[in-house]
């Protein structure tokens, strides 16, 4: 069974056709990259998949379950996590508190008023372990808005993967990062569990072709090509979009 099936999804923003009849499916454990010029509809597609906006038509299926009209929180509980193109953390909370919120999302006791947060030592231990795993222990007590942009991107990524999702949507995780930070974030993505399905938007072609098992190319809201990195590299229409005609 496919991890994620996108079936003839279209999106119309009051007359602007952002996506037209996009269909493709992603196998479990696949690293799927979405590329395309600005305005191609990549982030719109992500917002359809994560449930931020409703689709105009079409269907989205997660492991055989129709999630086309499911609210974002339900999709997350079904194992679909996402990062954001524009960093979306809890700015006035510490990095540790950010992680705690990510970790306790799947616990029913998140709603409890009769426990004390500071006594949830199992959660703090897991958050600590995640931070040290990614070498960020020293910023645990800093507020998310005070850490560097590169660190914020990494925390954004950790928040999404903390709940061990089955499918992870990454919206330009390397955008705006320095060369060294790109290497770091690409390393983090490479270290994700092999059975985690990753769908990722990326502008940097080197990064995209490096990570991808398969690539989907969007242009003006349409899926114009799909295939392995080698197939995409040689695809005439893709070359035309990126390098210009003739």
């Amino acid at each position, binding site marked *: 069974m496919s991890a994620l099936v996108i079936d003839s999804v279209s999106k119309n923003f009051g007359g602007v056709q952002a996506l037209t009849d996009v269909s493709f499916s992603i196998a479990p454990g696949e690293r799927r990259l979405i590329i395309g010029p600005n305005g191609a509809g990549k982030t719109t597609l992500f917002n359809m998949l994560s449930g931020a906006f409703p689709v105009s038509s079409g269907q989205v299926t997660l492991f055989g379950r129709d999630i086309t009209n499911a609210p*974002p*929180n339900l999709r997350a509980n079904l194992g679909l996590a996402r990062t954001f193109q524009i960093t*979306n953390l809890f700015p006035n909370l510490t990095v540790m508190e950010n992680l705690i919120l990510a970790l306790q999302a799947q616990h029913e006791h998140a709603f409890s*008023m009769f426990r004390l*947060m500071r006594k*949830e030592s199992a959660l703090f231990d897991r958050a600590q372990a995640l931070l040290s795993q990614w070498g960020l222990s020293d910023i645990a007590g800093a507020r998310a808005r005070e850490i560097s942009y590169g660190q914020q991107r990494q925390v954004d990524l950790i928040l999404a993967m903390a709940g061990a999702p089955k499918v992870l949507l990454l919206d330009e995780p390397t955008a705006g990062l320095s060369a060294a930070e790109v290497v770091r974030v690409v390393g983090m993505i490479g270290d994700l569990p092999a059975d985690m399905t990753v769908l990722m938007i990326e502008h940097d072609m080197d990064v995209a072709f490096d990570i991808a098992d398969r690539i989907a190319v969007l242009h003006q809201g349409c899926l114009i090509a799909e295939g392995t990195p080698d197939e995409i590299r040689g695809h005439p229409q893709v070359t035309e979009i990126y390098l210009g005609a003739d």
Partner: protein
Amino acid sequence: MKTTSPARMALFLAVAAALALILPYVLTPYYLGLVVKMMIFALFAMSLDLLIGFTGMASLGHAAYFGLSAYVTGLTALTLGWNVWLALPAGLMASAVAAGLFGLLALRTRGSYFLMITLALSQLMWGIAFGWRSLTGGDDGLPDVPRPRLWQGYSLTDGVSFYFFAFGLIALSGWLLYRITASPFGQCLRGIRESETRMLALGYDIWRYKFTAFVLGGLFAGLAGSLYVYYNRFVSPDYIHVARSAEVLLMVILGGAGTLIGPAVGAAIIVALENVISAYTERWVMLLGFVYVIVALFAPNGLTGLIESLRKKRAGP
């Protein structure tokens, strides 16, 4: 998370409790009454802080629950002769139900739209209290609400016993509010304040959290309102008016939203100022506006924020 050491916290609580026990015996009845008023508004402000400071929902209609509970407690005590064991819970129940119903509507919006709809809903309640003369007495209000009668023949008629009654309930509420904000639920409220979209993407059903916080805020505001009607022995549409909602909003902002203790201190300051200044001038509301401008300019994070930044400055960069 900034935490105070348990030893300092215990010391602070011990001093506060000792002070609370001594006060009735050192203050004149007039000033003791003023302290009770401060405590009631401290609870009112803390209940609003749960919405504004912790969940990021700026309500400009919080007096609706304060006033409704006051009316229900006052009316049932006056017309049905209910004692405090019935009249007070009836008020709380009414304010919680109203908060639930209003929450269903208001929580469809956020930001300034939320502010407007909470304002509109509270003014609706004000209109009912003002217009339904046969029930509420209109703008004359309901005078002669009896002081709480704990059991047959024992009413809290004197200032000291009423002080302890109010203090007990308000201290308990303050502790409950603290526990709520220090719980996983409270942490989720902060998450919602910081980023609703991220909370949704993490899998939180944020509506459920916001709705619960909204009803809890209404419930504690209702307790403050019921205590206030017993305190004043009177209730009028002023209890619900937007001016009161704005006043309690100012208490929260003056003290520092999101800290509980800040809004409680803010409430005490505003009540004290109002008391002192209205002895000299009738332009109290103008002064309130002046206070607001000063706070917005020089202490946008309230007094607790001001103290925090001064402490940081002293500690060096």
